[in-house]
C-alpha cells in the first residue's frame, strides 16, 4: 500500500508519547430544570498506534467523549477536566487553534457516511479543501495527495472518484472517502464514531480490515467507538466499557474478553447472539440506561445489577483484576465492589501502572 505520508507528521509532544490523554473529563448540559451529566469523570489514554475500543449502550456518553476530543461539543455543553490530543490541550482552546488540530492532530470519521459529506460539492472539492487547510501544498500536489489517500483506502479509480458527487457513491465507498479525507491530513489519532454501524456486514468487515491496516502502516492511533463487541474483539488492542458516563472496566482485549469482571461487561457480552443456541441466545439487560439528569447513587449500574448489595450505593473504586489466564493482568481494571483483586493503593498507582503499559 502506498503511503500518503510524504512530509513530517503532526508532532506528538508531552510525556509518554500519549496521542490522547483524557483526565477527569466531565461534560454536562445544563438545562432550565435539570442538568444532564453526559460524561461523569473519564480517564482514558491512547498511545501511538494503539487501537482503543470504547464500548457501551446508546446514551452512555461514548459519542460525547469522542466529540470532546475535537472540541466539537455545542456551546451549551459545560466541559471540565483535561483532554490532550498529541499533547495539546483541547478544553478552553480558542476555535482558531482548534481548527488546526482538527484533522491535523486528530481526525474523525462518522457513523453515517451517507450524511457525512456535503451533497452539493464533489468529493474532490471537499477533499482538496480539507487538505488545503492543513498542508501548504500547490494545487497539483493537493490533487496528488487526494488521489494517493483514496488509493490508500483501496477505492478503485481515485481519479474518477474525485469528480463524483456523494450521491453517486455507495455507503462503503463514501466511508472510504471520509477515511481518506482524514488520512490526507495525516493525523496521529483517528476517532471513529461507530463507523460501520450504517454499513452492510460485508462492507463492515472491509472497513475494519482497512482501519487495522492503516493503523499498522501509519502508526495511527484509533479511538474506536462502537456497541459491537465482535468488532472490538477483531480490531482493538485495548477496550474500555462505558456505562452512564463513566468507564466501568478497561483492559487489553485479550484480558477483558477472557475475564470480564464488571457485571455490566458480563451482561453486555451475554447479549451478543450466539449461533445454534436457539431463542435462548437472545439475552438482554433488563431495565434502562439511567436518566443522566439524576444518575443512581454509587455504582450507576446497581439498579440493573443481579449482584447489587447495599455496598453498591457507594461509589466503586477501580480494582486491578488479577487473572490466572494471563500474565499481563496489571492493565486490566474494573470499578465494582464485587471484583476481588488487587486494590491499587491509590489512583496514582493505577494510572502509573497504566502509563507503564502504554509507554
Amino acid at each position, binding site marked *: 500500500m502506498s503511503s500518503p505520508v510524504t512530509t513530517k507528521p503532526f508532532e506528538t509532544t508531552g510525556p509518554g508519547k500519549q496521542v490522547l490523554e483524557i483526565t477527569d473529563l466531565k461534560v454536562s448540559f445544563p438545562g432550565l430544570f435539570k442538568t444532564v451529566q453526559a460524561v461523569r469523570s473519564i480517564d482514558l489514554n491512547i498511545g501511538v498506534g494503539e487501537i482503543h475500543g470504547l464500548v457501551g449502550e446508546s446514551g452512555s456518553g461514548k459519542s460525547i467523549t469522542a466529540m470532546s476530543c*475535537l472540541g*466539537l461539543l455545542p456551546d451549551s455543553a459545560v466541559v471540565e477536566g483535561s483532554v490532550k490530543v498529541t499533547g495539546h490541550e483541547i478544553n478552553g482552546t480558542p*476555535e482558531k487553534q*482548534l*481548527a*488546526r*488540530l*482538527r*484533522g*491535523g492532530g486528530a*481526525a*474523525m470519521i*462518522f457513523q*453515517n457516511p451517507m*450524511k*457525512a*459529506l*456535503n*451533497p*452539493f*460539492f*464533489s468529493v474532490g472539492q471537499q477533499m482538496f*479543501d*480539507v487538505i488545503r*487547510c*492543513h498542508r501548504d501544498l500547490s494545487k497539483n500536489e493537493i490533487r496528488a495527495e487526494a488521489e494517493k489517500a483514496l488509493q490508500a483506502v483501496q477505492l478503485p479509480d481515485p481519479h474518477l472518484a474525485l469528480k463524483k*458527487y456523494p*450521491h453517486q457513491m455507495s455507503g462503503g465507498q463514501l466511508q472510504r472517502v*471520509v477515511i481518506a*479525507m*482524514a488520512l490526507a*491530513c495525516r493525523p496521529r489519532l483517528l476517532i471513529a464514531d461507530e463507523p460501520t454501524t450504517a454499513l452492510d456486514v460485508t462492507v463492515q468487515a472491509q472497513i475494519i480490515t482497512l482501519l487495522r491496516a492503516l493503523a499498522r502502516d501509519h502508526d495511527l492511533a484509533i479511538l474506536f467507538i462502537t456497541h459491537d463487541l465482535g468488532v472490538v474483539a477483531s480490531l482493538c488492542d485495548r477496550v474500555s466499557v462505558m456505562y452512564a458516563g463513566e468507564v466501568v472496566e478497561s483492559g487489553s482485549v485479550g484480558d477483558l474478553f477472557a475475564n470480564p469482571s464488571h457485571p455490566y461487561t458480563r451482561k453486555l457480552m451475554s447479549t451478543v447472539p450466539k449461533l445454534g443456541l436457539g431463542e435462548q441466545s437472545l439475552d438482554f439487560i433488563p431495565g434502562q440506561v439511567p436518566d443522566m439528569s439524576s444518575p443512581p447513587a454509587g455504582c450507576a449500574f446497581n439498579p440493573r445489577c443481579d449482584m447489587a448489595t447495599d455496598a453498591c450505593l457507594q461509589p466503586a473504586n477501580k480494582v486491578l483484576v488479577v487473572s490466572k489466564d494471563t500474565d499481563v493482568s496489571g492493565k486490566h481494571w474494573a470499578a465494582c465492589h464485587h471484583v476481588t483483586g488487587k486494590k491499587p493503593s491509590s489512583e496514582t498507582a493505577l494510572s502509573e501502572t497504566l502509563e507503564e503499559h502504554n509507554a
Partner: protein
Amino acid sequence: MAKYIAQRLMMMLLILFGVLTITFVLSRLLPGSPVEMMLGHHPTQEQIEEARAELGLDLPLPLQFTRYISDLVQGDLGKSLRTGRPVLEEVTKRIGATFELTFIAMFWVVVLGVPIGVVSAVRQNSAVDNVARAGSIAGVAFPVFMLAMALQFIFYGQLNWLPLQGRLDAEILLDHPFERITGFYLIDTLLAGNIEALWSALRHLTLPVLTLVIVTLATVTRITRNMMIEVLSEEYIRTSFAYGVPKVRIYFQYALKATLIPLLTVVGLTFGYLLGGAVVVEFVFDWPGLGGFVVFSIAQNDFPAVMGATLVLAGTYLTINLIVDLLYYVVDPRLRVQ
C-alpha cells in the same frame, strides 16, 4: 431537460390564460364603464350605444373574449382607451422603468438580506439577529404607501437630500439628453457617458428602491436565517468542522450553497412581491413605469391597458420563476441526470 422546459412553458401559457380570463371577467363585471370616461357627463343614449358598438362592448362576453384572445395571438393588445395608442407600445415604453426599479431593489434585497440572514443564523440572539428580527416585523407591519410617503417627508421634505419623485430632473432632458436604448436609465446614461444624467437617475432611484427594499428585505433575511439554522445542524457541516475547515468557509461556502435552493425559491416569490409593491411605489413616486400606468388605467376603466399590463407583469413573474427552477439544476448536483 428540454422536455422539462417545454412542459414548464406550456404550464406558463396555461397560467397566463387563466390570468387573462380572471382579469377579463373582473374588468367586465366591475361597476363603471369606459364609455362614461370617453363621453363625459350626460351623454345621450344614442351616443352611448354608438361608443359601445365602437369598442365592441355590445357583443356577448364570450365573443368579446375570443376576439381579444385572437388579437392577442397576433400580437395585438388593443388600444388604450385613455391615450388612444396601442397598448403594446404603452407597455414597452414603461416596462424599462419598472424593471430598473424592481431589479435594483431585488439586487439590494439579496445582497443585504442573505449575509444578514447568515450572520443571524450563526450568531443567534446577537445584536445583528435582534435588529434584523425587529426590523423584519417593522418592515412587514408598515404599509408600503405609508413608508414611501414617510421617506419622502424625511429625505425630501425635511432634509432635502433627495428628489421627491420622477426618474430624472426636468432640466437634465434639456441640458444633458441621452439616447434610451435599454430603458434602464443607469445603463443608458453610462453608455452615453452622461455623468450628470447618471447622477440624477441615481438620486431619483434611491427612495423608491429603498421603499421596496425595506418592505421585502425582512422576508429574505428571515428565510435565509431559518434555512441556514437547519443546514448548520446537518451532519456534513459537523464533518467540515471536524476536519478543521475554517468557519467562514463553512458558513459562506458549504452551508450557503445548501440553502441556495430554498433561497432561490424565495427570491422568485419576492420578485412577485416587488412587482406588486412597485405598483404602489410607482404611484407615490410618480415613477413612469408599468405600475403607475396600471393604477391610472384601472381608475379610468381602461380595460385593454389593464389587461395588457397585467399580462406583461404576470409573464415577467412566471419567467423569473422558470429561471429560478432551472437554476435548481445548476445548484443541486443530485437533480442533474446523466
